[in-house]
């Protein structure tokens, strides 16, 4: 049963990435300047010579097949704008983005959960007012502006991601914990004089754990794309900064690979949260 569940997630992940890659390859293939090189602007070269240099036109599926074959052999192609192998760029920059994601989203999740727990345990307007006000302001600012404000304060880009992830995590987790805290068995425990800390750890958190894990997945799927503007404005050398550079330089092969990489990270985050949440639900 568990194996079947895991296999279903794995198949879904692979299919989504393959279809995303196909869409990306189609975009590259139909892009206006596909197969055109800067050589064609050189007035010293004859039209016949330039046309002779052009690669043979290939269909979208064949192009995608060649691309997948290359990926299977570790060859992601070459970035036309940076004139470097895309695999090499990924090896250099992916760890930076993953580090930003781990620290930034991790801190946002922890902070969001802590604030939500404090609000549920103390149930005072003040315990709610501070996180609600801060999350409202943070939700009203674009992530790129948050990145610049954190840069201005001299803080690392990962903290800007914390500011993006925290308000969403807080809002959802506060709602989930409040619902769990209103359950009849929790009310009974409170009536019997069980301490707030024990109520939280023994009664509220176990009931809300599957939903909280789903929120972790949501934070990852929200956090990784939010790194695009943050890395771009904070000049953090991650893959998401590369994505913006690729977009500005119309480097579609690089963009497609980066979209696939981002999809894999987001889908793995979602799948991990789904699986652990499902396991918890079955156990309870």
């Amino acid at each position, binding site marked *: 049963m568990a194996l079947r569940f895991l296999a279903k997630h794995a198949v879904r992940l692979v299919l989504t990435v393959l279809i995303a890659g196909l869409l990306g390859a189609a975009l590259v293939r139909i892009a206006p300047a596909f197969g055109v090189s800067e050589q064609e602007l050189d007035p010293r070269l004859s039209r016949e010579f330039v046309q002779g240099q052009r690669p043979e036109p290939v269909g979208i599926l064949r192009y995608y097949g060649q691309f997948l074959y290359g990926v299977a052999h570790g060859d992601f192609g070459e970035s036309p704008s940076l004139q470097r192998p895309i695999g090499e760029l990924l090896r250099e920059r992916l760890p930076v983005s993953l580090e930003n994601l781990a620290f930034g989203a991790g801190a946002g999740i922890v902070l969001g959960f802590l604030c939500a727990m404090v609000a549920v345990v103390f149930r005072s307007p003040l315990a709610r007012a501070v996180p609600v006000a801060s999350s409202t302001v943070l939700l009203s600012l674009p992530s790129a502006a948050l990145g610049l404000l954190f840069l201005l304060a001299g803080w690392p880009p990962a903290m800007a991601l914390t500011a993006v992830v925290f308000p969403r995590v807080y809002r959802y987790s506060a709602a989930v914990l409040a619902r769990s805290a209103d359950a009849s068995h929790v009310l009974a425990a409170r009536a019997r004089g069980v301490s707030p800390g024990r109520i939280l750890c023994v009664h509220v958190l176990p009931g809300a754990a599957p939903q909280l894990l789903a929120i972790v997945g949501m934070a990852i799927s929200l956090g990784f794309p939010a790194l695009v503007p943050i890395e771009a404005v904070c000049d953090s050398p991650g893959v998401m900064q590369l994505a913006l550079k690729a977009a500005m330089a119309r480097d579609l092969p690089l963009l497609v690979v980066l979209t696939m990489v981002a999809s894999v990270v*987001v889908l793995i985050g979602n799948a991990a949260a789904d699986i652990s949440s499902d396991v918890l639900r079955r156990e309870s």
Partner: protein
Amino acid sequence: MLRWSAVAALLAILAAGLFANWIAPHGYADQDRESPNLSPSRQYPLGTDELGRDRFSRLLYGTRVSLLLAPAAAAISIAVAVALGGFTAYAGAGWARASSLVTDLMLSLPTILILLTVRAMLPLNVSALASIVITCVLIGALNYPPAARVIGAGVDALLKSDFILQARATGQSPGRILIRQLMPGIRPVLIAQFWLLVPVFVMAEANLSLLGLGVSEPMPSWGNLLRELENYSAIPERPWVLAPLGVLMVTVLCLYAILPSGEPA
């Protein structure tokens, strides 16, 4: 009461943007090369930028662009979602599954990267008006999946209801059922989705324009006005450069958050 206050405040801000031609003391592209980076004065209420353009006038025009672009994009998203929801409701199980698969796929992919990819395919050096249209259509068309999921579920629930069954039994045509029975039933969902999408799209436009892929200069929008943050070292000495824009953005987005439920977010 709170909702009506929010509506009134939003309308006032929108009116200031719409009537920018009359309210703004200068045009958004007028340059006074003799007076760049001025502090606030009677002539320039929020000072001037590095090209000598009046910041207050640009804020008013930028408000117009951002506050009109986001609802237009939200309307496009809702239209796509309704078309897909309606289509899958009538087209049979195979099409419904295919449509659901596409929606799932779109939900799994990071929207900002799809936006970047599609925007990179289109010409970057376009007129200001064309850049507004491109940004609006892209944001609206690529962000439909969450709305499609909710609207699709609403349509599905309505189609299983007794009054639709009765309408079918009385021989009403699918078109008539769609217009007379389904649309009124689904209207509250559409309105709620619209008001939820607008602030999201205000932020999407701001992010895209701040990155140089949205509304292009010299037309101001909140996103490209925020580009002044790039010169961040000067901000502590000159808070008037971005503080009014920041306050306006936070205010407007909070007001939008109040609209659907009538309660503070």
